[in-house]
């Protein structure tokens, strides 16, 4: 019997199996940010185990609240910064060159097909877009990852989603993943890997694949994963060209980590997107989604475009295309947060930031900020935000606030209209 890509990665990284179905894996990368890592650092110090397994495999960023908004967040940054210096961790990204972790680290070429990656962050599943096994973990797992370079996982059973058909104009990867989360439910893939496959994924950019994999965890998935292909090679080429004589050779090497045609899946789901329309979440769970059309006219107070789901340059371009030459409604306020410093710079060079500003948006520096309700656009009680983020939990963007998840195009259109609406109105 063949193997899935996740099973192949497990086989290649297995250190031990202390119980049936439990695998201790060797890690290729441990990612760290300032919210979950300082507690791990403090605990390692307290245990007299302030060591790192391999400083070159640890990548560190201050991204969640940057610049620090108060003494507490400043202390979190300081603990992380001091630790990175003390252990000579070279890939440390402080303000001025930082960005939202799941956008920044791929941009730096830190994720490769076949890698095992952990981070103390639930959206680590994003990196599966490169054909890696990347999973969010808690602080203790992170601690052991930092200390020993290992992590324990259940043997991966995989749900394969075969995505067929053609996405209509104005329908994006975000709408697609909302439809999938809606279909699976918030618990539908718990403890499972979600493999995104089929012709629609084959023609997707890495950015769109990352948007898909990013929200695998919203269906409970451990990791989202896509097969490495020429698109993956093209994206990574600048970082790997010293290692391979040609792109073809890189592709051959990457393809060692692909699912066999006769691999065993827990479930195979056929997902036809031909009739998919732009979607939006309505309640407080990301699986509560309906067509934008059915929410047409719903009032919002704030528009937020950014985050590890949709803060990439591709997302800003789409939103800017909708906003071009228009003004946002006076009833709403708009916040756009390019996800990394490089994206910010590129958006500036391409005139995208100007489009946003002319439309009446506030452009913030790269940070998670409002996405998790910590800074840069926290909602007041009773307020509603149209957001390109990934979580609409009650209170996520501020106590008593509500979030509607949607694509950047829908968010931009909503900003202009001042209420939830379809981007097709503005894209003609």
């Amino acid at each position, binding site marked *: 019997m063949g193997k899935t890509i996740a099973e192949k990665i497990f086989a290649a990284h297995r*250190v*031990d199996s*202390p*119980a*049936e*179905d*439990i695998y*201790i894996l060797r890690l290729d990368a441990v990612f760290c940010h300032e*919210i*979950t890592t*300082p*507690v791990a650092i*403090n*605990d*390692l110090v307290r*245990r007299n*185990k302030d060591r790192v397994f391999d400083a070159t495999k640890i990548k560190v960023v201050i991204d*969640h*609240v940057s610049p620090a908004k*108060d003494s*507490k*967040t400043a*202390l*979190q940054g300081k*603990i992380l910064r001091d630790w990175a210096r003390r252990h000579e961790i070279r890939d440390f990204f402080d303000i001025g060159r930082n960005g939202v972790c799941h956008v920044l680290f791929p941009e730096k070429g830190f994720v490769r097909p076949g890698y095992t990656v952990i981070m*103390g*962050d*639930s959206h680590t599943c994003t990196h599966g877009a490169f054909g890696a096994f990347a999973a*969010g*973990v*808690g*602080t*203790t*797992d992170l*601690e*052991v990852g930092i*200390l*020993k370079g*290992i992590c*324990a996982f*259940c043997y991966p059973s995989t749900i394969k989603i075969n995505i067929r058909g053609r996405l209509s104009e104005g329908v994006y990867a975000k709408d697609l993943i909302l439809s999938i989360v809606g279909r699976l439910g*918030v*618990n539908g893939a*718990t*403890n499972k890997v979600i493999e995104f496959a089929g012709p629609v994924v084959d023609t997707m950019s890495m950015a769109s694949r990352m948007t898909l994999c990013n929200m695998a965890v919203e269906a*409970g998935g*451990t990791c989202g994963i896509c097969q490495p292909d020429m698109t993956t090679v093209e994206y990574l080429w600048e970082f790997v060209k010293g290692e391979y004589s040609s792109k073809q050779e890189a592709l051959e090497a990457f393809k060692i980590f692909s699912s066999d045609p006769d691999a065993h899946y827990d479930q195979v789901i056929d997902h036809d997107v031909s009739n998919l329309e732009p979607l939006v979440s309505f309640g*407080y*769970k990301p699986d509560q989604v309906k067509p934008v059309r059915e929410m047409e006219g719903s009032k919002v107070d704030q528009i937020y475009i950014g985050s590890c789901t949709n803060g990439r340059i591709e997302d800003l371009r789409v939103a800017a295309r909708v906003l071009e030459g228009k003004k946002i409604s006076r009833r709403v306020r708009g916040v756009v947060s390019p996800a990394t410093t490089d994206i910010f710079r590129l958006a500036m060079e391409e005139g995208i930031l100007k489009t946003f500003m002319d439309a009446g948006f506030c452009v913030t520096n790269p940070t998670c900020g409002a996405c*998790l*309700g*910590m800074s840069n656009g926290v909602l007041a009680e009773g307020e509603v935000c149209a957001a390109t983020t990934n*979580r609409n*939990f*009650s*209170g*996520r963007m501020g*106590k008593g606030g509500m979030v509607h998840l949607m694509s950047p195009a829908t968010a931009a259109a909503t900003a202009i209209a001042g209420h939830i609406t379809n981007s097709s109105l503005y894209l003609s």
Partner: protein
Amino acid sequence: MKNFKGKVLFLNRADINTDEIIPAKYLSEVSKEPLGPHLLEDLKLEGFAQRDLEGNSVIVTRANFGCGSSREHAPWALEVNGISLVIAENFARIFRQNMFNCGMMAVELPVAVIDHLFVNYAGREAHVETDLEKNVFTFSANGKQEDISFSISDFDRALVTAGGWVEYADAKY
């Protein structure tokens, strides 16, 4: 090793997420203790008030407990409130792992058994004892008592016995 016994709090709702267990605004804490007073502060559950937490050491709840953000602050907030055992239909993966990694327990029981516990023990000052050798919980309320068996993997058991994953991993690997 922690002990897994005491008064039981019943939370009759599925999908209680970690933002409800401990809101993001407390993530700027770099130690566990300050989380204590904010446990379940944002829980959306009719009739629940934070003072209901008082004196409880065990939670029994429905499906997908601990979904959402990976924050280990959720088990810690439970821990500093003296809660080291959560029993549910099932858990979100990261939350479940975090619990065992901290030497605490997140134990799954079949839906029918959870239903039975809600019907017979919720709202009745129920108490539970855990026998880790026999894999049995003993529930009692109003003079009535019964054994409910459970299973956890050898690995989870080893983590609980070792006092968590850091100790276990550093000793073994």
